[in-house]
Structures are given as C-alpha cells and as structure tokens.
C-alpha cells in the first residue's frame, strides 16, 4: 500500500524526529500540511517537542499564523457551545456534541490544533422540530436562505433523505450549526439508529480538579451540561463520516482524528472488545474495518493485533479491498501545487461516486446525480 509522503508522516506521528531538513523540504511539507488542514496541529506538536528552533528563515511566521488560526477557531467553537446553551437554558433537552465540539469538550487529544469551528449536535428525533424552531427564533437562519437558494431541491433532499437539518448559520457570528438526529441517512444501505447513540452518550466530564477551579475556568463553563458520544461511538461516528458518509478525498485530517482516538482509548479496559461488538450491533463494521486498516497502515495507529484480526470479519470482498487499498491512500494524500495530480483526482472521483452509492438506493442516486448535473449545466433552480 502506498504510504503518506515521508516528511508529512514524520510530522504527524513522530514530530520529535523532524528537523535538519532543507528549506525546500519544509516548504513542500508545510504546503501539504496546510492542504490537509493539519499545519496548526503540527505547529503545536513541534513546540511541544522543542523543535521550533533552527528552522529555515520564514517558516516561523507561517507556523505562528497557523497557531493563531487554530486558537481563534477554538475560541469560536467554545463560545458557540456557550451561546447554544444560553438558547436552550430553560429546556430539558439532551444535547450531544459531535466531532470537533465533542473533541474539545471531551479533551480528546485530536482537539489540539484542530481547525473546524462548525458545531454538530445530535438530539432525539422527536426534538428535532422544536430545536430548529428555537434556533430560528434565536438568530439562526437557514444557510441556503443566505445564498438566496431557499425552498429548492437541496432543502428537500436534506429533510427527506438525510440525517440532519439543513445547516443553520448564526446571523451575527456567521457560525454554522448542523443538527442531527442520527449519524447515518435513513436511506443508506446501513443505518444506525440515533436513539441507540443517545442512550449511551455520556455527560461531559469536568476537567477541573476542584469546584473552585471549575467555577473559574471559562472552558469549563462552556462544556458543562453537554453530552458526548461514548468512546466506541465517538470513534465509529468519525469512521462513518470519513468512509461512508462523506468524501474520502481531502479526509486525512479525519484519519488523524481517528488515530488519536485509537491511541487515547486503546488502554481503557475492554475497549477493543466493546468496539468490535458495538460496530457489529450498529451495523458499522465496514467503516471501522477501513479506519483501523488505514490508520494503522498510514499513521502507525496502535491497533492491537487481535483487534485488527477481529475487524477482518467486516472486510469487503477481496477485489473491493484491493481497489480501496489502491485508491484510499491516494485520495487522502494531498499533492504539491507544482506536482501533477491527475491520479489523485481520478481516485477522488471514483471514491466520491462510491460514497453516494453507499448512502442512497441506486435509483435515488441516479436521480440525485441527474439533478446535480442539470443544475450545473445551468438548469432552473426548481428542477
């Protein structure tokens, strides 16, 4: 299997080994890291490893820029958590944070230098309408409306077939929130029931040592009262997002998240048995198989041998696996602007079609792609 570019991999899995590189090498790897959205994380790790000296002229500024960007994103995310709590302050509702917000609230290692400041939350299906109404009343508007694209096919598509509301944007802050009721679309070939996830979700743990410390820590205030998915589900959700739901192209950052979660949860008693059983139960074995396989192969994730073996039962038929082994590393690897990137594009296209196949029955997929193509060709909005 083709690996990641060597320097990028070093920076991601062994930053203490970095250094002694020419400016040319740094320039290239910094470009790749920015393209993959992981430069901020790398800056944080280089500082931690005491590797911020003796770098080529000009690189320091680039790293500082990346760090400031990351710090700003974390402030935005933590503030958004605070503001959303303010909106629902008088409602008895279980809000489960997903993705970036969950990593931040749960202090999962992949939160360091993570760039997205979008909010993703999961609520019970019968709460969905109420949550949307409350948000719309409290300053959020439909993102589609802002683009002047209301009431069209996309909106219906989200509501009828997807597992979330159309994204909402806060008018004042410009931040985006996605409200989900499950983590997979009901039309997909595998589905995971949202109520199962809600049931096992755990309250965000206080990270403060004492109550006084908790009361004086702004970050504590933001996270208190929220829930996050339990460890197995948190990892599974990320794998679904990368290998089933979204596009694999450009998804290296997600695989890095998964690697960090694997390392973070690995030593919890019974984690691996619970993970395999949970994947089986929720019907999410396939994405888990891919995640463990590629996180281990590309990013040296510490997956124990028995767990790798156990996940084999979720493997696709051999030809598919061989094809994925060929395509996935290429689609995940960013390319330098001045290198040719035709192969990557092709791999990405193939995988994009695959992710749609996985989430819609074929007839509906044909209809979806036809409408997209029609609109791209300049067809009317209400096609």
């Amino acid at each position, binding site marked *: 299997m083709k690996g990641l570019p060597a320097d990028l991999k070093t920076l991601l899995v062994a930053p203490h080994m970095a250094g002694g590189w020419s400016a040319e090498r740094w320039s290239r790897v*910094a*470009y790749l890291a920015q393209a993959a959205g992981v430069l901020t994380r790398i800056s944080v790790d280089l500082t931690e490893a005491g590797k911020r000296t003796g770098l080529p*002229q000009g*690189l320091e*500024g680039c790293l*500082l820029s990346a760090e*400031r960007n990351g710090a*700003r994103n974390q402030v935005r995310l933590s503030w958004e958590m605070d503001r959303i709590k303010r909106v629902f302050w008088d409602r008895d509702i279980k809000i489960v944070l997903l993705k970036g917000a969950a990593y931040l609230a749960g202090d999962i290692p992949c939160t360091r230098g993570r760039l997205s400041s979008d909010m993703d939350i999961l609520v019970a299906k019968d709460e969905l309408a109420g949550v949307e109404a409350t948000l719309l009343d409290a300053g959020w508007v439909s993102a589609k409306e802002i683009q002047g694209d209301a009431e069209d096919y996309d909106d219906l598509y989200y509501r009828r077939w997807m597992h979330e509301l159309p994204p909402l944007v806060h008018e004042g802050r410009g931040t985006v929130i996605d409200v989900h009721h499950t983590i997979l679309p009901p039309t997909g070939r595998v589905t995971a029931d949202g109520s199962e996830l809600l049931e096992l979700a755990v309250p965000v743990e206080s990270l403060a040592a004492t109550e006084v410390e908790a009361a004086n820590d702004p970050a504590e205030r933001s996270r208190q009262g929220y829930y996050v998915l339990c460890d197995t589900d948190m990892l599974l959700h990320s794998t679904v997002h990368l290998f089933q739901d979204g596009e694999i192209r450009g998804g290296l950052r997600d695989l890095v998240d998964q690697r960090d979660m694997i390392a973070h949860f690995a030593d919890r008693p019974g984690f691996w048995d619970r993970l395999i059983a949970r994947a089986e139960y929720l019907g999410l074995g396939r994405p888990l198989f891919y995640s463990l396989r590629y996180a281990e192969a590309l990013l040296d994730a510490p997956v124990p041998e028995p767990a790798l073996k156990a996940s084999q039962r979720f493997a696709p038929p051999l030809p598919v696996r061989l094809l994925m082994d060929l395509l996935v590393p290429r689609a995940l690897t*960013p390319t330098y*602007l001045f290198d040719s990137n035709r192969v990557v594009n092709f791999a990405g296209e193939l995988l994009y079609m695959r992710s749609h196949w996985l989430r819609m029955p074929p007839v509906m997929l044909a209809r979806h792609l036809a409408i997209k193509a029609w609109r791209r060709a300049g067809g009317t909005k209400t096609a």
Partner: protein
Amino acid sequence: MRGLRRGTLKFKVGPFVARIGTTYPLLQQDFLDIYEGYPLAAPEDFVHFNLKVGPVSLLRRWFRPKVIADGGFVASPFVPLPGDLAILALEMGLNWQVGTKSDQFLIFHSGVVAKDFEPSATGEVRPSRAVLMAGQSGAGKSTLTAGLAYNGWRLFSDEFALMDTSDLQLYPYPRPISLKNQSIEVMVERLGEEVFSRPYLDTPKGTIRYLKAPGDSLRNGDRPARLDLVVFPEYSPGAPAQVAEFEGAEAFAMLRGASVNCDRLGQAAFDAISDLTGRCKFFHLQYDTLDMAMRMVEDLMEEAA
C-alpha cells in the same frame, strides 16, 4: 523566464517568498517587466505562497484564452479573466493569499510609506518612520502612496500594512502599485513612461497600469519602520483643503476597521490597536491636488515627531 515556465521561480516580497509558475508566454513577459529588480529567494528561504497561473482548460489556452490563478489548497473567490489580463489574476491571487494566510502579522488594508534617516553624527541608528494611509478604495490612497514613494519616501505597500504585534514594527510589502483610470495620467506625467507597465484595458476596474516599485524599496525590503502617523485621505475636487485630527475611541474604531484580520488575531490585535491608538496621530485629509496631499503628509509627519 525558464524558471517561470517550470514553476521554479522564487522571489522575495518583504518578509515573504512566493513561488510562481505559468506556461503562458504573455504573462511571462508582463511579469518580468513589472517585477524586474525583485530579489530572488536563496535556497535557505522558506516558500510562503505558491501560485500557478494558467488557462482554465486546454482549449481555452488557444481559443479566446481565459486564465485563472491557482493557489492549490487556498480557495480564492476570483473568476477567470481574459488571457490579456493574466497579470491581474496573478496580482489578485497573490494578494489574496497574503491577506488570508499571514496571521503572523496584523494586517491593515492600506498604503504605507516611510522616511529613512541617516545614522546621527554619534553613529546612533535612527528608526524609519512610517505613515499609514487607509480609507475606502477610490479615496486616492494608491495615488498618494505612489506620489510619496517616488518623492523621498520608501514604498512599503499600496495594499497591505504588515505589523508585527510583538514590537509594533511595520514590515515592507513592496509590490507594483496598481493605478486606475484618471490617476494613471496624473502619475505618468510626473514619473515618465518607463516606470509603468503597459495599459490593461477593460479590467473589472476599468483601465489599469502598474507602477513599478522603486529600486530602493526592493533593496531595503527587510527594513521595518515605526508607525507614527495614520491618515484617512479623501480626494474631493474643488473643495478646500482640510485637516481634521481625531483620537481616542474613534481612532481605535477607524484603525480597527482598516484591519483585515483583527478578528483572527484576537487579543494580540486588541492590544496592538489600543497601543497604536495611544501612540500615533490620526487625521482625516481632504485634498484637491496630489501635491497638496503630499505636502499635508510631510507637514503632519514633521509635527508627529
């Protein structure tokens, strides 16, 4: 020329190194014309920005050419331009990358020029002193910047002021100055044809000619300056010249409004802008002729000392 074609040309603009590539012969010519005299990057320099300018499709290279600047992962909002205007695509593409990916600096959307001083008789080095010219586009800040840059001041930028928030020093970003429509004539008359690019007609902003950055601004591209004066010029033909000082919360708000990335810098920006509010002089300028505006800036800088 070969470096440009193969995408290996790396040149320095102030604190940045940009790597540029294009296979488009007309752009290669235009680029070498207005970037003549820029220092090339040394092998030990890190590359901040990468930009490839090329036809939107293979067909479009020959048939009514349309070009676009490709910054790779940096998504930019620009539409393709006719092949004749390829240099604009490059200029806008590079500015976009600097404006969105350089948060090591607090950036103001403004022109900047500075006065350099010889070391004093006792050998004491005296810092260069800068004036920042902000305000809406069309207020004449490019023309004023151009006028001063060729008249005893050193060009820092007509686009972005780059401020290091740790010591409040401004860093040069000397780029060709883009002059539009009527101001072209005024400046060609003053400075002569040879410091200008060819005219670019029918751009989204009308006619554009680039004024080359003066040689001393390129040779001193790594020398910072202290900010002493902030002006908001306003070209009002036929109106009497007016200078109005302002300060305090208004100065803070005006300066913050000129910043491109203060939101992304958080407290570092808040502290820097507050400190500058307390330390610099702020003026609205209303002027009729370029000479008048230049004299005002000279006088105000004398006073701000």
